[in-house]
């Protein structure tokens, strides 16, 4: 999941009696699956929670370009390089769709960017892990994009119109990402012994961080309860994680790779796999800023923002000058 631990109102879901007439009418629309659009009345908490969630989601797309961009110059063939470039370009586009959706809620793009750059807003913990060998690019596409799709497919039905539309567009493009990742994994897993070892090593390192993407269990979270009631969130973190594990296990088997979990076993009774939880203390530590690459990622984003300032200013000055000249000529 690209948005983890998004805080909502923190007050729990209001009962019907506690709602104002406006709030009750709003909840009725959500319950009837009628989309909420930018100009419609909405509770302040709904607006704020959405800005946090869509913003975090957008930041994840943008920061997510960094671990993959790391391999563009080192891709093993020209074709792989072109494919990876196209994928990283897609991520920029996904970030843009999401920022635009957030902007319809009355927040500015620059404001969101600045909140990312100074650490007030988060991005997914997964992008604080390094991509050390070429198989990591395969593992990122297969597992990380796979986990993202798991989260984003239900979000196509989210209650806020612009967010839902952005998700529909993103999901269309995202399956290319997962398939290109799996394609790399197949090549590596069926390659030389050294390549197979790299593929297994990538799976070993990315397995638990991928499970963390869904966030810690939220079955008792008041924030999640509110987001579920507002249909900003469709499934609980545990439900999505279970689905992800069940989907991925046969894919790993096909590759002949071993998921690094001795407790992994099919549970006939629940119709799903039993598996080990990731180390949540590591997760909280990474979210706090102590992951292997947190500093690199934020430094890179800050550098890009600062180095690009003259371009943004220059193009705007040029546009204003031309507009003034045009007005003068009329």
């Amino acid at each position, binding site marked *: 999941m690209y948005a983890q631990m998004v805080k909502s109102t923190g007050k729990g879901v209001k009962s019907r009696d506690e709602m104002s007439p406006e709030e009750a009418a709003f909840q009725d629309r959500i319950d009837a699956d009628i989309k909420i659009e930018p*100009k419609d009345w909405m509770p302040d908490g709904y607006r704020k929670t959405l800005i946090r969630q869509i913003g975090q989601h957008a930041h994840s797309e943008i920061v997510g370009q960094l671990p993959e961009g790391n391999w563009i110059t080192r891709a093993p063939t020209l074709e792989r390089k072109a494919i990876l470039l196209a994928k990283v370009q897609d991520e920029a*586009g996904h970030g*843009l769709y999401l920022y635009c959706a957030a902007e319809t809620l009355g927040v500015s793009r620059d404001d969101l960017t600045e909140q990312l750059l100074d650490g007030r807003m988060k991005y997914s913990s997964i992008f604080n892990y390094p991509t050390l060998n070429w198989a990591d690019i395969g593992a990122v596409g297969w597992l990380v994009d796979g986990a993202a799709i798991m989260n984003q497919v239900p979000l196509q039905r989210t209650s806020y119109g612009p967010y839902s*539309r*952005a998700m529909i567009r993103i999901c269309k493009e995202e399956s290319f990402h997962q398939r290109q990742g799996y394609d790399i994994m197949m090549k590596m897993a069926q390659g030389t012994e050294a390549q197979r070892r790299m593929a297994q090593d990538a799976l070993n390192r990315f397995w638990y961080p991928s499970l963390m993407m869904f966030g810690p269990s939220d079955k008792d979270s008041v924030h999640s309860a509110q987001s579920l009631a507002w249909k900003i969130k469709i499934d609980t973190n545990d439900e999505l994680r279970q689905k992800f594990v069940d989907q991925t296990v046969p894919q790993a088997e096909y590759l002949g790779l071993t998921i690094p979990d001795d407790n992994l076993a099919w549970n006939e009774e629940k119709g799903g796999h039993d598996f080990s939880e990731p180390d949540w203390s590591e997760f909280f530590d990474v979210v706090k800023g102590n992951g292997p690459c947190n500093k690199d990622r934020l430094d890179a984003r800050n550098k890009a923002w600062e180095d690009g300032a003259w371009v*943004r200013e220059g*193009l*705007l000055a040029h*546009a204003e000058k031309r507009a003034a000249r045009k007005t003068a000529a009329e």
Partner: protein
Amino acid sequence: MSKEWPLWEVFIRGQHGLSHRHVGSLHAPDAEMAIKNARDVYTRRNEGQSIWVVEARHITASSPSEKGPLYEPSESKVYRHPTFFDIPDDVGAM
């Protein structure tokens, strides 16, 4: 920089002769750059044959509170739909 590039709404006409359709928005300093950016962002997979961009501030939108007066009158006018009229099968296709 305190000043942000303006917001543009992007409309794309697809391949099959349909009208331009709103696909999303983006920031750009001027119309020319907005078209270039729209090409990069919204037509990466042959989605378009033609692009329109318009600065978002030039769009006037109806308000949700006008929904009743604007759209309710047509609800009672079912005769505007061809299925309102029963034409006997013997007449043939119409």
